[in-house]
């Protein structure tokens, strides 16, 4: 931690590190795209989407302590709103700057819809209800194709408009000062900008009156009430804020993929996002970001690497890489929870908390 401590105490070191990080983030798509190929660039774009999702869920689970197993529903709401408002399905082609905020708002509204009836629930009970909520949304999307075809059912909606910024479509390579910038780079920068915005908002919220109220509810709801916190409103606010981040990520996902179907919003996805939060370090923003990156990138490494490595070692592929991937993933989860129960990168207080218990 001495490196981080140095950053904290020296303005110059902090400035230098920020500059370096900024340059790295700006150059990353070129490094990855040229070094590893476009499929990895896509994974990078997805990592940014998952970071947004993990940060949104972190508000609900990490700050307010409300276990939500249906979080992916808000991602679905954002994605389907984009798909319906910018595709040939209804013949609507609204601009992205209108849809993304609308997606955030609608997802936030769904967050309140989920939060309102579950205010009295905590822990296991809340987990079951939210799990049901996530499934209900997915099943609705799957079945809202008759009698009136709204979501096009299990086939999903295809041909979704790519995201256009200032008349430039991100789906096509761009010419810029004589350079050709591939489409995936454009998406990368857009996602990065929004992810940074969400990081900024989350950090600001964490160190505020509202953030403290969330943590207070997590720690002791009755004491929080006695301190004058309107727990109902503050909890609903957590649900709405978290959901709205999911809605933003969902809209971007739809524009990026040009296709959405209910399959993308399964329970497994909710659990994956939850794992990012828990594994990274619940309630600690850098940890959650790390969790988002690792859990997007590592499974892909297994997927791409497991086959060739087996080929090299044994001369043939013994285990299906897909099955092996989940196996290793489960193993990694167990190892982390055993050796780093507070997450890979917990907040300093959380770390103290676990050390304190061991004393």
């Amino acid at each position, binding site marked *: 931690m001495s490196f981080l401590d140095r950053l904290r105490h020296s303005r110059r070191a902090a400035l230098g590190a920020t500059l370096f990080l900024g340059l790295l983030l700006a150059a990353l798509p070129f490094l990855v795209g040229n070094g590893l190929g476009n499929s990895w660039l896509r994974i990078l774009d997805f990592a940014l989407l998952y970071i947004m999702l993990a940060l949104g869920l972190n508000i609900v689970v990490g700050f307010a302590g409300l276990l939500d197993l249906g979080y992916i529903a808000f991602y679905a709401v954002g994605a389907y709103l984009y798909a319906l408002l910018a595709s040939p399905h209804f013949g609507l082609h609204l601009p992205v700057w209108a849809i993304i905020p609308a997606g955030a708002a609608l997802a936030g509204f769904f967050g309140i819809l989920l939060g309102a009836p579950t205010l009295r629930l905590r822990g296991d009970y809340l987990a079951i209800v939210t799990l049901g909520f996530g499934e209900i949304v997915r099943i609705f999307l799957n079945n809202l194709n008759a009698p009136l075809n709204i979501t096009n059912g299990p086939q999903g909606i295809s041909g979704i408009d790519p995201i256009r910024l200032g008349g430039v479509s991100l789906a096509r390579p761009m010419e810029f000062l004589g350079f050709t910038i591939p489409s995936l780079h454009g998406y990368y920068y857009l996602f990065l900008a929004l992810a940074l915005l969400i990081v900024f908002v989350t950090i600001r919220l964490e160190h505020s009156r509202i953030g403290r*109220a969330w943590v207070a509810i997590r720690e002791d709801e009755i004491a929080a009430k006695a*301190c004058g916190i309107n727990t109902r409103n503050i909890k609903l606010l957590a649900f709405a804020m978290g959901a709205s981040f999911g809605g933003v990520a969902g809209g971007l996902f739809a524009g990026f993929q040009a296709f959405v179907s209910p399959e993308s919003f399964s329970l497994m996805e909710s659990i994956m996002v939850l794992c990012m939060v828990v594994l990274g370090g619940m309630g600690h923003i850098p940890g959650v970001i790390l969790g988002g990156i690792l859990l997007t990138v590592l499974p892909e490494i297994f997927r791409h690497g497991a086959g060739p490595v087996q080929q090299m070692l044994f001369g043939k592929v013994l285990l299906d890489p897909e099955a092996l991937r989940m196996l290793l993933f489960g193993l990694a989860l167990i190892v982390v929870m055993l050796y780093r129960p507070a997450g890979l990168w917990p907040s300093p207080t959380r770390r103290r908390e676990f050390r304190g218990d061991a004393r």
Partner: protein
Amino acid sequence: MSGGGELLLDARRVAKQFGGVQALRDVSLSIRAGEIYGLIGPNGAGKTTFFNVLTGLYTPDGGDLVFAGRELQASAPHKAAAQGIARTFQNIRLFANMTALENVMVGRHVRTRAGVLGAVLRDRRTRAEEAAIRRRAEELLHYVHIADRADDLAKHLSYGDQRRLEIARALATEPKLLALDEPAAGMNATETGELRVLIEGIRRDGVTVLLIEHDVKLVMGLCDRVAVLDYGAKICEDVPAVVQKDPRVIEAYLGA
């Protein structure tokens, strides 16, 4: 020292029932501004139930509570806090994984206003408010003599310091009435003596104190008036010297 202040809390025929148990039977008591009012009684007499009704955690089955001239709304703890009632808990309820300072800062919630927009934009008003919250919280930690533990997690504080922190958090809500539920429980004689000085100081600074306590010596030495509950009913209310000699009180404590 008997308080000649105006009426701060007027509880009239408050009743509360749990299943077949009548926890409070038409309890009426009135607390005047500026006094230290003791509420005593054997275990299970209904003291904590009265606290919970008073602070909005329970809805009373009957009766009403008028606080500072206004009816208290049932089952709305955050509104009770806003009206000026703060409390501590018999089994300490701190925000265990927040620092001592943060615990007190949460107490300022009800007197501050910044919302999501303020938090994100951090405009001048929000920054000023946040600085004031921190300043006040630091002052209060000083006030209860645990300023040196400001950055420690609440759960790592010693038992006595946790009690003090809970009082500081309650005071952060700027109460008119501070309700302390057995603050001296588990304390040794020295700590109890320090607590007594603290409570007297709080009263001197203009906060009325309602005290549930088992330590008879503390109650008798500290309180201006004492009410005794037994089986959910008030059996006596007077200055300590009179209460101590009341045959009903002696019977309640020593058994018939």
